[in-house]
């Protein structure tokens, strides 16, 4: 298949894109744009490379949702916050977190079917509860962290170790032993 064939096939698939795929990819684009723009309007000075790399990765993410592009996009935005942002909890951070989560979920949804596949609304039935909880988790964690910080809790070493163990346990469980297996 030469380039023109691939291009025409891609165009025909674009033409035949289902409404579910349109919605998912629009969500990726919209939420990705929010995640890109929000750090740019902050008072701290963002690295110049972040918007450029982010924009390129966002386009790749919309085109190829079932690829590493989404991981790299999320990582880029997080690196932008990590490198320059002050260690502060703000509503912009919460919004960015929600936007990143939406990019992740929409990419996961769009990546599980071909762009031209027809899907009804009921395919999102099992997604609503975990997605809602995950979206609410960001603000809750932010508020809780702000409260703990202002309360100046003692014994922060114990809290840090406990959080580290909990985070490791959660990640270990989420990754599952199957990650490294070749199959049954």
């Amino acid at each position: 298949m030469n380039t023109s064939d691939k291009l025409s096939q891609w165009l025909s698939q674009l033409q035949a894109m289902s409404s579910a795929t349109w919605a998912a990819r629009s969500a990726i684009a919209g939420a990705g744009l929010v995640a890109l723009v929000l750090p740019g309007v902050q008072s701290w000075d963002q690295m110049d490379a972040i918007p450029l790399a982010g924009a390129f990765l966002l386009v790749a993410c919309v085109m190829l949702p079932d690829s590493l592009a989404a991981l790299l996009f999320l990582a880029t935005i997080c690196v932008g916050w990590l490198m320059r942002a002050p260690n502060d909890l703000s509503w912009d951070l919460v919004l960015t977190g929600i936007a990143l989560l939406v990019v992740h979920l929409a990419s996961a949804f769009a990546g599980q079917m071909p762009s031209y596949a027809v899907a009804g609304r009921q395919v999102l039935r099992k997604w609503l509860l975990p997605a809602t909880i995950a979206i609410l988790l960001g603000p809750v964690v932010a508020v809780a962290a702000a409260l703990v910080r202002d309360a100046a809790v003692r014994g922060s070493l114990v809290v840090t170790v406990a959080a580290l163990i909990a985070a490791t346990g959660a990640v270990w469980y989420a990754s599952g032993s199957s990650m490294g297996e070749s199959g049954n």
Partner: protein
Amino acid sequence: MSWRPTHAQVRAVSLAAVLLLIAVLGRRPDMAVLGLPLAFVAAWGRYLRPHEEPVLESELDADVLFEGQATTYRLKVSEALDPDIDLVVMSLVRTPWFRYDPPQAAVAESVADGAVTVEVGVRSERWGLRQLEHPTVIATSVLGGYRVQVKAAEALAVSTLPLRDGFEAVDAVPRPAGLVGLHRSRRPGEGTELAGVRPFRTGDRLRRINWKVSARTRELHVTSTWSDRDTEVVILLDTGAEVGISEGIDGRSSSLDTAVRAAASIAEHYLRHGDRVRLIDTGTAAGGVRAGSGRAHLRRILDVLVHADRRGRQQDEYQLARRHRIRSDSLVLVLSPLLRQGILGYIVTLVHSGCTVIAVDTLPPDVADVIDLEQHDARTWPLAWRLRLLERRAELDRLGDLGVPTVGWRGAGTLDEVLRDAARVSAAPRMRS
């Protein structure tokens, strides 16, 4: 194949791990705000990871269709489905001469109550026997965390019969073997001679219903008649060349398309009227069918016509004359683009043996405009065709001089005029030499 983590699951796990690690070690609560929702999504996906691979089976509502008819390709779970499976996505590889609904033949269905059925409409657009390609089936878990490619279901074949338009011709047959009054026809069919009263069968005309008997027996009965005539109709199908472009039932037809569809329509018409119909293939692609009558015989002819698109060795006029002996009182309908010398020579042989021959021209009218620019010269190709068509016109005129009328296929009514002429000629008094 087993359930594998998707890019989404790997993304959620790795990002959550890194962000939470930085949050805890670097005392950065902002990273926890970004990482904890992802960790939750990853844990949810892991918790609801399916373990059983779904076993799916495919089926078609109907594996024998007429051209233009549609059926449903259905993918079903054969056993209990793992409740943690969220979505089953089926994508059929599109096969030529089939149109799908949805057009890209890909459907995603969510699992509800441990069951899922994925359906795709399939419309057959050209006669023939074809296999539908294996579908690609993928099952995914909740939040797209894990996926498995399900083993392909067995390939299913669809046989498309070349019969669509109702063909009608006048009842005039040059030399009917059975005549009402003198020699009653041996076969039931359309006629006026009473054969009996029998229960209604699918396909019977409503006007044949015997209401008195039906009312008495409380079951539909029809009055059956003997056929008014009983002629052997020989359909000679030229499978030697396919000229023109075939675009299926809704587009342009090649010469072979027209010939096959015409053969099916003519056979259906004459069999409905109680005649005996025989099919002869000039090659070995379709094979032939011996003379016979009735509905089962129509099905035999249609089943043979389905294979006419295969390339077969063609027979010359001598081989045709030797292998296919045709009774002199038969009505022979030649379905051909009339381009090969072999078929023209065989027609002459049939005329000399006393058969009534009618040539049905299946050559597409726009044949000179069909140009393959990779193989043909755009300037000389139409000119070459014009010359060939002039030669062909002269050959058809010579056939006309021998008493072989040539008509183009137009569906119903195509043969009316030539059949009337042939009946008139055969009924006229003959001069003995």
